[in-house]
């Protein structure tokens, strides 16, 4: 014979199971963005003709900012976004060039090249990076993200597969 006690336990148990099932489904949805996509294929984005960066490669000019457009998956849509990179000299790369993301490694503000100070400056918390992207001053914990540039058929290409990883 069921007692009030067993009824109460069963009722609570059932309610708890139902509530946690619903919460679980909602939680799985809310936590969705944590799932990372598999590493993408190499994605080459055109940066410009190699001739445009001759002076830079020869060390006769400073970093050059370029805009690169790519498609990113953003929530429910795929958007074409423009991103700003700085093309800098890189003696170790075959192309002699590398791209730096102009996103501050501290909290993501956009850094810009300041010719007068020969440095990348972040307007938010005072981060300063050298022409090679190394931290010179301020709170940034890491250098600017460096991405390889390759020259294919006279065009400089940015390998963007490492972005968003």
């Amino acid at each position, binding site marked *: 014979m069921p007692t009030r006690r067993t009824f109460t336990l069963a009722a609570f148990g059932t309610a708890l199971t139902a509530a946690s099932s619903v919460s679980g489904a909602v939680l799985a949805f809310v936590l969705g963005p944590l799932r990372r996509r598999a590493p993408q294929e190499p994605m080459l984005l055109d940066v410009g003709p190699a001739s445009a960066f001759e002076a830079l490669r020869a060390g006769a000019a400073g970093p050059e900012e370029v805009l690169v457009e790519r498609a990113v998956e953003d929530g429910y849509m795929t958007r074409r976004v423009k*991103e700003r990179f700085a093309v800098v000299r890189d003696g170790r790369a075959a192309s002699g060039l590398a791209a730096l993301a102009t996103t501050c490694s501290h909290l993501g503000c956009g850094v810009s090249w300041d010719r007068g100070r020969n440095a990348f400056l972040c307007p938010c918390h005072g981060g300063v990076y050298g022409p090679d992207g190394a931290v010179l001053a301020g709170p940034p914990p890491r250098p600017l993200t460096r991405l390889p540039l390759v020259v294919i058929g006279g065009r400089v290409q940015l390998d963007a597969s490492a972005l*968003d990883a």
Partner: protein
Amino acid sequence: MKRLFEFLESRASLSSLWRAFADEPVSVRRAWFFTLGSAALVALLVQFASGFALALAYAPTPDHAWESVKAIQTRLPAGALVRGLHHWGASAMVLFVALHMARTFVFGAYRRPRELNWLVGLALLLLVLGFGFTGYLLPWDQKAYWATVVGTRVPAALPIAGAAASRLMAGGPTVGAATLTRFYALHVVLLPLLTFVFVAVHLLLMRRHGHAGPTDEPDPREPFFPYQAARDGALALALVLALFWLAARHPAPLERLADPTDTSYVPRPEWYFLPLFQLLKFFKGPFEPIGTAVLPGVSMLLLALVPWLDRGASRRPRDRRLVLAAGGAGAALLLGLLYFGALDTPKGNVSGLDPASQPPPDARLLGGFASYERRGCASCHGAEGRPAADASPNAVGLAARAHVLAGDAVAAHVKEKGAKPAATEEDGESPDKDIPSLLAYVEALGRDGPRFSALPQPIRVGGAAIDREDCRQCHQLYGEGGRKGPALQHLLGKRDRDWLVAHFKEPKKLVPGSKMPSFRFLPDAELSAMSDYLLAVP
């Protein structure tokens, strides 16, 4: 009428409820101090009402958010007023919650048996800040975007779950469409529900234990109605009037559409997050989590523990010197950070509907500045006509010189000494056609020494391009130029950057019968900068 009240009393005991509410005994001394909480409640009601109205016309997608807010601000009836109320109401919320909390702290009103209500109040403070943080992303303008980029990256440096928390907040690796829908859902569904529940509990607990009253005897009481109700009402009325005045006189700002590529923008958060923002400047590299998590977390924990740390018998300030000193030091620190954060906030942001932004310099001067740099004038005359302190004795400064040489002599000097501009002029234009602008710039340098290098990049680049492309041949700019086309002024509000760029590329497509040539040969970045410049011209 009498029968209606009798009906309501017999079916819902409404009159008895009202009596219980109105007859609650409240303190007579320090009575005005006990109006701060109700002012916060009034501000919250303003937020609920105005927020509901805004949600009717708002679209939480990156493609439409800014546009819909702009429509609210400029086209929809009473839109600017409602948005102004919501904008200023948000600040009022934070202000009155903070004042109410400071009052409770100084009065020691969190003491037993009101510890739980102190914690509920703390939760409400966090909810209000959560409203602020999720709310100002929604307009999707520059401030919204960049403040959220910073805000969502704050947890990223924390050990273990930091990166995941940051990703969850943004709804993906970067701030975008998913961030907007997330923040919208939090701002209009979850946070209001939680706030409603917590406010209800806060009020019920307050009534359960009654007013704490002043810190010492005597504590005479009177019914809440009418005197305290009148005080609450007076402050509420003053607050609502102030909000209307602010909404009418200082419209809520809407900056340019969010632009992730614009590195010239200087992001600054709303004033109530400025202390936190300022704090982040002090902790470098691996110590960053101290500023982002440890200090704010420890402060909140200490606040939560206050009722258990301060538990003497007397609530009088002189018996609680240590606690009050600690609280005062914390408040002073917060205000100091706010002050220095505000000092460090530049005014130069080029913002769409911000009437306070400075008009840009004349395009000709910017063109001259560009050719000053291109021709290498700075190698002898210094950047912006100011030679460095350790420059050679031959360096001749130009800024604020007593006399200025005749134009012909300067032109000859430029042709002789200045670097020739690269031969990019394809259709037989003189390589020296920039000299008149350069002369105008040098003349301005001698007169009042303007400094252009601190201007936002789009203004510099755009102004120089407008000068180089000789837009003044057909258009008036700052009251000077031809009259074949419309004057280049008051464009803000009528056109936006995307329209202007599209128009530069194909004028006839957007304005049928236009005689303006296409400028599609110019790089996109330059067209965009020219648009920014024109939008900034008053």
